[in-house]
């Protein structure tokens, strides 16, 4: 198998094994129904009490569809940090380093397969629930295209961040604390609960350029308010994020693998 196609194979195998878990479907449905219902009530009350028909440029219906997408993205995150942490501590990583396969790319492959399947499932369920709760929103083919185009780099960026934290297992007694904080910050600063437009004015400008928003808010906004210029901007920010975090990963991974070879794993 040639170079990169190896990793695509890994991704598709991982994807297939995830589809097999049909029990997941039922769990997802309940999970998303509860969260989206709570958000629905929250926003219904907010819109009603403030007497507004639009907040931050979102109607109530658009808000809920937006939230359905952000939730789908957040909930599709595979447990990358835990996987890397475990591989480091059990010495599995050392085993991987001997094989003619890049460990980071291997992880990327397996986690992408899982992520894509879970996201598709979440989105399907989430949008149906949103439809039931608030009815449809105006959608163009552009909306869907922009959303789909915004996702790949978002997922890669999120992967790199998680992978980086996982590598912390070489030096830290425990990485669960860090990953907890990271995921929480991604949720909040990434706009999972409210779109960036509704944050205090002063915060909005720098929130938009932070990587968190480019993982969550950026793609979700595409569904509600698609625009090629916004998409381009988003892709640039995502790429910059990938380059930045990617460089960190490369450095840390280099140090880590040297450590493995020096200590014999």
């Amino acid at each position, binding site marked *: 198998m040639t170079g990169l196609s190896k990793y695509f194979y890994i991704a598709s195998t991982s994807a297939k094994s995830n589809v097999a878990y049909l*029990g*997941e479907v*039922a*769990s997802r449905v*309940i*999970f998303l129904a*509860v*969260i989206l*219902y*709570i958000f629905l*009530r*929250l926003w219904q*009350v*907010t819109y*009603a*009490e*403030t007497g507004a028909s639009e907040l931050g440029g979102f109607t109530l219906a658009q808000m809920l569809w937006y939230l359905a997408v952000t939730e789908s993205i957040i909930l599709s995150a595979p447990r990358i940090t835990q996987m890397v942490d475990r591989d480091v501590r059990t010495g599995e990583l050392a085993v991987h380093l001997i094989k003619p396969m890049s460990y980071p790319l291997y992880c990327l492959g397996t986690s992408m397969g899982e992520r894509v399947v879970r996201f598709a499932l979440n989105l399907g369920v989430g949008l149906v629930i949103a439809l039931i709760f608030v009815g449809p929103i105006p959608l163009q083919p552009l909306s869907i295209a922009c959303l789909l185009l915004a996702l790949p780099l978002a997922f890669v960026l999120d992967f790199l961040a998680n992978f980086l934290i996982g590598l912390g297992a070489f030096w*830290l*007694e*425990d990485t*669960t*604390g*860090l990953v*907890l*904080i990271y995921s*929480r*910050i991604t949720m*909040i600063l990434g706009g999972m*609960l*409210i779109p960036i437009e*509704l944050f*205090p004015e002063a915060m909005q400008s720098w929130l938009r350029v932070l990587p968190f928003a480019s993982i969550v808010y950026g793609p979700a906004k595409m569904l509600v308010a698609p625009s090629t210029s916004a998409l381009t901007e988003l892709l640039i920010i995502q790429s910059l994020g990938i380059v930045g975090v990617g460089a960190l990963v490369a450095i840390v991974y280099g140090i880590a693998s040297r450590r493995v070879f020096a200590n014999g794993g």
Partner: protein
Amino acid sequence: MAAEIIEKEQPVLSRLRSYLGLVGAYTGFNLKSQWAYRGAFISQMFAMAANNFVWVAFWALFFERFPVLRGWGVKDVITLWAIAATGFGIAHTVCGNALALPWLIARGQLDVWMLYPRALLSHVLLGRMSATACGDTVFGFAVYVLFVRPDLPHFCLFAALSFAVAFLFVGFSILTGSLTFFLGNAEGLAEQWRFSMITFSTYPATLFEGFVKIILYTLIPAAFVSYLPIEALREMSLYYSLLTVLGSLAVLLAGILVFYLGLKRYESGNLTEMRG
């Protein structure tokens, strides 16, 4: 031989004292055990507390901007988060094994606990301490004291209600965990039920009405966390406090009932998997 073994039925008060002594011993040893890996312990505690703090800060800002909670203010929302955290935190700091119940049951690990001359449920729950729950507890009290700035009476009521909510969470964990007796490893469903409870507990019940509100007092007893204690503190009300306590006890009793029903099944050996 049996006649020589004279078993005195101990009076209730001394049994309670003996149990509280056991709780103290377990909590002490659990802490000591966690402290053996203090790096991980502290970082998990800290992470949970930091986590919660960020979450609360966010919602505080939101409700400052959108004062839409039908009479509730920001302080009330913070109180809600605080008591959900302290309740959940105390519950699983002391009774950490409540969270591990499905695992214990599925793997036949209850056997070891059954060999002790102690009531099974109240004993097995003590066997573990959740590090993140410790973080929740610390956070809850800290955030209440620092941001709501209560006077002494309010603080005492808060502490008392935290314990009531703790009983509720323990009872609920037992209830959902005991489903493993009946459903084998259908943890998925119990997980979702648990998740719904925790999620609803952290949003003001004032948002919900009608049918859903009924559910919040029954199937998903979150209102006993997200409404009644807050009202009790707002008005220093004995009435609401009593309702909170009664609700918590009801959930606890329900959990105990389901557990012992399931235990009968366990003892007959006819769980879904036959343990060699």
